């Protein structure tokens, strides 16, 4: 049976093809269109999945959309309804108005609802099924949908290695739901508890993300990064916003947030009264005088240091509270399910600091779907349909995150030939390749590393990566200046051979397939005595978002780490995604060459071909 899962229209569009219970291919639209977070209909991702599996659209048995559009619109009406009622009762600022009197002019529809209705008609969001049917020229009855959190649940459990697990989803919001606790067993997922709007930990985190001057759905990582520079001084104030319920659920105090009918900002005046003025986007951030330009006066510098500290403390506080909430929900889920196996999905599951604590402090066997956000719902939608509607036996778990575009040697040759860059050599073997690349890395070079099929999910895992020497204290600055242009508070992550991981990092890697560290989804402390050994990847709070690599999970990358170890004594490389700031990760050799040509990367490795940044004249 062939099931195509699709997500689009809201966040990152994606497609995934399930063939007889095996994920044949999966891809995110942004990688093909080169538009970051592209939410358009995933034409190219679908075309890729079909081509990769050698399947024609006519041979696909079912196409499954990842959420219930009608239910989502019902929620939008409901939310407006609640707000209008509150206004009518004088509970909120704004003029009172009669609710739902029959409107003869658009003025009688509340502005929020008018705006949403307008955009839903304009973008044809009501009829996702019809849209898919006409885009793909397939009969309407071939297309169906599953609920948003059912997609997340399926992405979390069915792709995990567990036969029995607690399954927890947490995100901003799907249709109505924002979090679900369920029990997974074999091919069945049984829901036990759901939390609905307006209570949402994802939206709370996003509200602080916006307050701290970052883009929602993108800057959440920056909040995590910034938290490392602060102390949770505002813990009590943030914690007061959250009630943890005995049944594993939670409630969010609403006076500080606008989660029902947000117009521009997700927080209220009450929020500002409690937490002060929001941080300006791109505002200077510094933790010491030397981070700042010399031409600032002492008073100016002191003010930047003070405000940086303040916002970092807020980030640390919201991060601490989010971790506490996640630990609370997961503890209850684990107790309900009667197992320490835990599967997570939903955007909140990308909180790698919380994931690290779930592993280290709580000892769960954790699986996090690598594309935990809505892109992952392409796989989730297909998987949910396959098991729960088609009643098929349990699909194969997630064997590899490398489900995207393969590297075609013919494309490599063509792209290099027209690039004008000097091809140093194409190695005959991986052994020769890793010797060569480890040599230039040990010499201080920054390397673009493109191998095999592209990653599924937001992290570069050694298929579309930029690599550099983690032992070089200047490397963070070098990579930032030459290609990434990241804020000071964003750490760079390490890739380490799994066998050496516990020598450098304070955790015991679970080598079973699917451990979050394979997907760079958990943060762990760097061992105290190793911090000075790997300064480029040790964050301000002494932690790192570790990727473990085995000879089975990624043989060439593993061999490279071993070769680097022979030269530098450390089987660790700085591993950051191969893209310029604000762009999606490179996908094809052409994308890689383009990024290479406008950045300060020293060498580009495409399969076994090594290209120098010298231009051939």
């Amino acid at each position, binding site marked *: 049976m062939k099931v195509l899962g699709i997500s689009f229209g*809201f*966040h990152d569009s994606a497609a995934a093809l399930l063939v007889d219970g095996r994920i044949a291919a999966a891809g995110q639209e942004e990688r093909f269109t080169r538009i970051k977070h592209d*939410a358009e209909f995933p034409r190219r991702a679908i075309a890729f999945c079909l081509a990769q599996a050698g399947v024609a659209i006519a041979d696909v048995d079912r196409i499954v959309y990842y959420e*219930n559009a*009608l*239910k989502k*619109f*019902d*929620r*939008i*009406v*409901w939310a407006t*309804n609640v707000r209008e009622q509150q206004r009518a009762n004088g509970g909120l600022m704004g003029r009172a108005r009669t609710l*739902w*009197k*029959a*409107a*003869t*002019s*658009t003025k*009688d*529809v509340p502005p929020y*609802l*008018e*705006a*949403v*209705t*307008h*955009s*839903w*008609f*304009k*973008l*044809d969001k*009501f009829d996702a099924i019809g849209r898919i049917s006409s885009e793909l020229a397939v009969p309407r009855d071939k297309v169906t949908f599953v609920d948003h959190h059912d997609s997340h649940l399926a992405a979390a459990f069915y792709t995990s290695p567990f036969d029995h697990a607690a399954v927890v989803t947490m995100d*901003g*919001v799907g249709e109505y739901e924002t979090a679900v606790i369920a029990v997974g067993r074999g091919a069945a997922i049984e829901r036990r508890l759901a939390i609905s709007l307006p209570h949402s930990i994802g*939206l709370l985190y*996003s*509200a602080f993300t*916006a307050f701290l001057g970052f*883009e*929602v*759905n*993108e800057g959440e990582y920056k909040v995590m990064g910034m938290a490392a520079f602060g102390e949770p001084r505002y813990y009590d104030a943030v914690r007061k916003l959250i009630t943890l319920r005995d049944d594993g659920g939670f409630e969010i105090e609403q006076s500080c947030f606008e*989660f029902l009918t*947000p*117009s*521009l*900002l*997700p927080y209220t005046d009450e929020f500002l009264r409690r937490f002060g003025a929001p941080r300006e986007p791109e505002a200077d951030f510094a933790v010491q005088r030397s981070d700042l330009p010399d031409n600032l006066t002492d008073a100016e510098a002191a003010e930047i240091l003070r405000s940086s500290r303040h916002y970092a403390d807020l980030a640390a506080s919201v991060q601490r509270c989010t971790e506490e909430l996640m630990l609370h929900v997961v503890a209850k889920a684990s107790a309900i399910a009667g197992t320490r196996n835990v599967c997570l999905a939903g955007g909140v599951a990308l909180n790698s600091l919380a994931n690290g604590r779930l592993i280290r402090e709580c000892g769960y066997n954790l699986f996090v779907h690598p594309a935990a956000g809505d892109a992952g719902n392409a796989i989730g939608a297909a998987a949910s349909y396959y098991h729960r509607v088609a009643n098929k036996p349990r699909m194969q778990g997630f064997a590899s995150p490398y489900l995207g575009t393969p590297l075609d040697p013919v494309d490599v040759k063509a792209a290099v030939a027209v690039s004008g860059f000097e091809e140093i050599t194409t190695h005959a073997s991986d052994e020769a390749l890793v010797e060569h690349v480890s040599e230039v890395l040990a010499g201080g070079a920054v390397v673009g590393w493109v191998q095999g099929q592209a990653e599924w999910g937001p992290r570069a895992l050694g298929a579309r990566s930029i690599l550099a020497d983690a032992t070089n204290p200047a490397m963070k600055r070098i990579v930032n200046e030459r290609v990434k242009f990241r804020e000071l508070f964003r750490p760079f992550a390490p890739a380490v051979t799994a066998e050496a991981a516990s020598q450098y990092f304070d955790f015991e890697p679970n080598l079973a397939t699917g451990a979050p560290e394979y997907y760079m989804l958990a943060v762990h402390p760097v061992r105290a005595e190793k911090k000075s050994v790997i300064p480029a990847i040790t964050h301000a709070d002494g932690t790192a978002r570790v990727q473990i690599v085995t000879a089975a999970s990624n043989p060439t990358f593993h061999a490279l780490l071993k070769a680097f170890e022979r030269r530098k004594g450390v089987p660790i490389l700085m591993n950051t995604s191969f893209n310029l700031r604000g762009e999606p990760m490179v996908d094809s050799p052409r994308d890689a060459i383009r990024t290479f040509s406008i950045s300060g990367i020293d060498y580009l490795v495409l399969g076994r071909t090594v290209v120098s940044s010298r231009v051939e004249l």
Partner: protein
Amino acid sequence: MTDIAALRADVHKEIDRLIAEFKAGGFDNAARYLTDNRAAVAEIAVKARQEPRTRELPSPFVYSMQ
């Protein structure tokens, strides 16, 4: 029929279909909204359908919920 009249007729047909679908799905909030505000919604839809299908995002936060 003028283009706009044809568009309006299409939109009304679509709203009928949506009301039926919302009712069938048990989505009473949406069904009631479309029923009670039919004329206004039709005007919103006619206006929306005359615009190019480009997406302008109110803010990432708002967008993520709609």
